[in-house]
């Protein structure tokens, strides 16, 4: 008897599903399985193949794409309510949702949305004690939308990568990681249990680590990979805690549908849900790069650009958003979203939108601008979910995936053919003339991101802002509108520096070797003026130098900027088409030609959505009162950006000269000092002895307090000065300092490195606690 035989035995317990369930939806696991098969094939046979293993990835992703389109068609044509799994769980869910099944009209005078049952299949994975851990799929409209998005972008990235990484020495490994990543993401969006979700989540983290560190010979790249890994792992502690809490709270089950149901119908008490929601939210913050755990995402740009486009823009970073939306019942109760006050999620989302958009202004590296823009847009999604715009947030997730993948790949095209493998915007400029297709597709992405009507970003962002307004989250509305303004502004700066004006590449006509040495000499935490040179060579430049040699002939022939080949522009055009038209999927007006009113919403609405937002009557139609101001703000942002960057030629003197602008510029340049906070303050305080910390506080903070107090006291009068400063403040301050340093000294003695003394302390403490329990309980 072995594990395998039990697994085989478990296989017999496949839940019965009626034969009416469409094949692709009932076998959605085939999609990730295809990508994982491609991963294995690439890893083992890739190097022997003609295209070094890329063919496996291409074939699998084309097949996945076809299946995903088939899945969308099957889902749309599925009749509501009468098919799907007939197991006990579906019966239970149906019993719960029975009253809501024929739900009241969403908006006055409209027919109710008819829900389709999710298609569920599961096998018993393993048993431990009396707990039976299942592994299964749960396919509903949300899953189908995610599958389509991921498959589409994955295919584009695979095609793009063939040309972009041609000649790279780890070409095969790159494709293997890409395949595994796609498989993990496709799995994560369809699994029915939190455990299965964790599995996909961590696999994606691993692939992200591998791809960021793809050119690991450069220390900055491997540092960036480690930073991404550790930062997301920090958040994952919360995720694990949340999963464990929910496992026990929901009665020994990992099943997400059951957890949602229990959370929404009083099966779990409110305090537990609050703790679980906050814990899970830490995982969301790490993965979806929310303030203040967002610092890894800009550094993650060290990876190859198509990988950034797939992982760090379109798909992996939205895993947190997906988790939030999937376990919405838990967050709905835990964050009390229905009550309408600013909750934890909406605060974090609002802060992220504005702070990341601010940071995007001072980046000189086009990929970093896009990275901060991604952070900011993820903030919109988190904000949307936290203010009750479930559909809006998911819609934004989908539209953002298309237009941000487009922007990244276009920037990759620019670096590939327009600026000698550099992402430094100082080396670009005027590329409109040289790269017409890249320029036009980037322009589409720009308009979509800025939220200009008819392009996709407008529709989805507006839905979130509308919900924030209607559900009483005024601060969220303000932050979102401000973010819309800033987005238009910084993206115009990117356009001006990259595609408009004069080309500046010839100003930087030095060879690559000198730069390699320069980059190596730079320290990671270099001062602000160093970041410039450092950023220019922090990523692709170094590794791509290898690739550069391979097609060096082409470059020698025409050394200036030129348009990229069809393998790069093809995916760009495909993504641009999607970025333009995908916004019409949730057409908010009356049916018009092929546009169906709220087609997207009607197809992704699931039982969780019905029981939370719809039941609370928080679904709102399109509203010009919010849309027009947001259009005005976006256009205003573009106008300001145009005035400053094109008319004024980006006069940096204005911001560097000092005053409030200068201070703001400095703070932004240093990324709000968050990196310094993580590395210097927190790690330093763990590393250094406590006494040192107390000394530091004594020297810096408290001295500063004394000085400030001294100055103001001197102004108010000598007598007061003598009394307050010398007597009271000094007393308190010195007392605090002395007690801190004495305390540090005492505690330091405990850290004597002798294990047996540690054991004695530990046992004594245990005894005291036990004794306390005896006495007081």
């Amino acid at each position, binding site marked *: 008897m072995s594990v395998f035989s039990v697994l085989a035995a478990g296989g017999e317990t496949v839940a019965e599903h009626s034969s009416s369930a469409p094949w692709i939806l009932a076998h959605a696991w085939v999609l990730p399985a295809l990508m994982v098969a491609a991963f294995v094939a690439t890893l083992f046979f890739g190097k022997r193949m003609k295209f070094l293993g890329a063919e496996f990835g291409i074939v699998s992703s084309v097949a996945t794409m076809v299946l995903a389109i088939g899945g969308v068609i099957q889902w749309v044509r599925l009749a509501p309510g009468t098919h799907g799994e007939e197991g006990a769980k579906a019966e239970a869910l149906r019993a719960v949702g029975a009253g809501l099944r024929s739900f009241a009209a969403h908006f006055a005078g409209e027919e109710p949305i008819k829900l389709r049952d999710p298609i569920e299949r599961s096998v018993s994975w393993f048993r431990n004690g009396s707990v039976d851990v299942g592994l299964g799929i749960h396919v509903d409209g949300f899953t189908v939308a995610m599958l389509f998005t991921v498959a589409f972008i994955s295919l584009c990235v695979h095609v793009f990568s063939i040309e972009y990484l041609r000649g790279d020495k780890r070409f095969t490994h790159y494709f293997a990681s890409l395949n595994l990543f796609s498989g993990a993401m496709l799995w994560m969006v369809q699994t029915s249990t939190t455990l299965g979700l964790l599995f996909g989540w961590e696999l994606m983290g691993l692939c992200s680590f591998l791809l960021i560190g793809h050119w690991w010979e450069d220390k900055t790249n491997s540092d960036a990979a480690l930073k991404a890994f550790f930062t997301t792992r920090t958040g994952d502690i919360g995720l694990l805690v949340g999963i464990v809490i929910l496992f026990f709270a929901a009665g020994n089950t990992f099943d997400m549908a059951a957890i949602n149901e229990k959370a929404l119908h009083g099966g779990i008490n409110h305090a537990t849900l609050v703790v679980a929601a906050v814990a899970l939210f830490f995982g969301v913050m790490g993965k979806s790069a929310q303030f203040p755990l967002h610092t890894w995402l800009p550094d993650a740009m060290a990876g190859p650009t198509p990988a950034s486009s797939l992982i760090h823009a379109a798909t992996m970073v939205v895993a947190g958003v997906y988790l939030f939306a999937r376990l919405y019942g838990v967050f709905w109760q835990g964050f009390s979203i229905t009550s309408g006050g600013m909750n934890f999620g909406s605060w974090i989302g609002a802060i992220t939108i504005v702070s990341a958009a601010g940071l995007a202004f001072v980046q000189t590296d086009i990929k970093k601008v896009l990275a901060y823009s991604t952070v900011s847009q993820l903030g919109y999604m988190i904000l949307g979910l936290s203010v009750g715009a479930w559909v809006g947030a998911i819609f934004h997730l989908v539209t953002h995936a298309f237009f941000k993948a487009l922007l990244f790949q276009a920037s990759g095209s620019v670096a590939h053919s327009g600026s000698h493998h550099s992402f430094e915007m100082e080396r670009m400029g005027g590329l409109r003339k040289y790269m017409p297709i890249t320029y036009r597709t980037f322009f589409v992405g720009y308009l979509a991101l800025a939220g200009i009507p008819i392009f996709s970003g407008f529709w989805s962002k507006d839905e979130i802002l509308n919900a924030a307004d209607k559900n009483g989250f005024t601060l969220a509305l303000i932050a979102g509108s401000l973010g819309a303004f800033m987005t238009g502004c910084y993206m115009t700066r990117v356009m001006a520096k990259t595609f408009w004006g004069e080309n500046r590449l010839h100003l930087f006509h030095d060879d690559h070797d000198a730069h390699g040495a320069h980059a190596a000499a730079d320290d990671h935490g270099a001062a602000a003026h160093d970041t410039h040179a450092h950023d220019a060579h922090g990523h692709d430049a170094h590794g791509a130098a290898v690739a550069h040699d391979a097609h060096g002939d082409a470059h020698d022939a025409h050394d200036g900027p030129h348009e990229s080949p069809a393998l790069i522009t093809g995916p760009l055009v495909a993504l641009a088409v999607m970025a333009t038209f995908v916004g019409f999927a949730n057409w908010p007006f009356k049916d018009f030609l092929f546009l169906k009113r709220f087609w997207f919403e009607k197809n992704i609405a699931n039982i969780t959505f019905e029981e939370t937002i719809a039941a609370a009557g928080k679904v709102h139609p399109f509203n010009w009162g919010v849309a027009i101001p947001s259009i005005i703000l976006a256009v205003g942002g573009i106008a300001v950006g145009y005035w400053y960057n094109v008319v004024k030629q980006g006069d940096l003197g204005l911001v560097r000269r000092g005053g409030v602008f200068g201070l703001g510029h400095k703070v932004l340049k240093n990324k709000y000092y968050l990196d310094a906070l993580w590395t210097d303050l927190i790690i330093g305080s763990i590393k250094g002895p406590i006494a040192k910390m107390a000394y530091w506080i004594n020297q810096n903070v408290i001295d500063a307090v004394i000085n400030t107090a001294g100055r103001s006291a001197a102004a108010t009068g000598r007598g007061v000065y003598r009394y307050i400063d010398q007597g009271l403040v000094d007393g308190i301050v010195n007392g605090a300092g002395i007690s801190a340093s004495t305390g540090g000294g005492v505690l330091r003695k405990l850290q004597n*490195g002798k294990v047996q003394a540690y054991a004695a302390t530990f046992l004594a403490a245990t005894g005291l606690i036990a004794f306390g329990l005896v006495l007081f309980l």
Partner: protein
Amino acid sequence: MLINQFLVLAAFLFCAGAYGVMVRKNAVLVLMSIELMINSVNMNLIAFALKNDNIIGHVFALFVIAVAAAEVGVGLAIVLLIYRNRRSVDPGEVSEMKG
């Protein structure tokens, strides 16, 4: 038989083991004291299996024995390594981790 006669005996063995862990200057003796503590815990498991009429206590005692075997193997290997590098097995002398 009283339940407590087993539990108190186990508690006594546990505390004797704890004393050994705290005072012994030979790492092998420290490991032996740890074995004593593990055994006292196992006695609790077996006693409660009988009290609660639940065989799972026996299952866990067996798991604990297996894990303890692994622990002794790795622990002795580490002690040997320390001995080879420092010619001493006194845990008190290995204090590079001091703050």
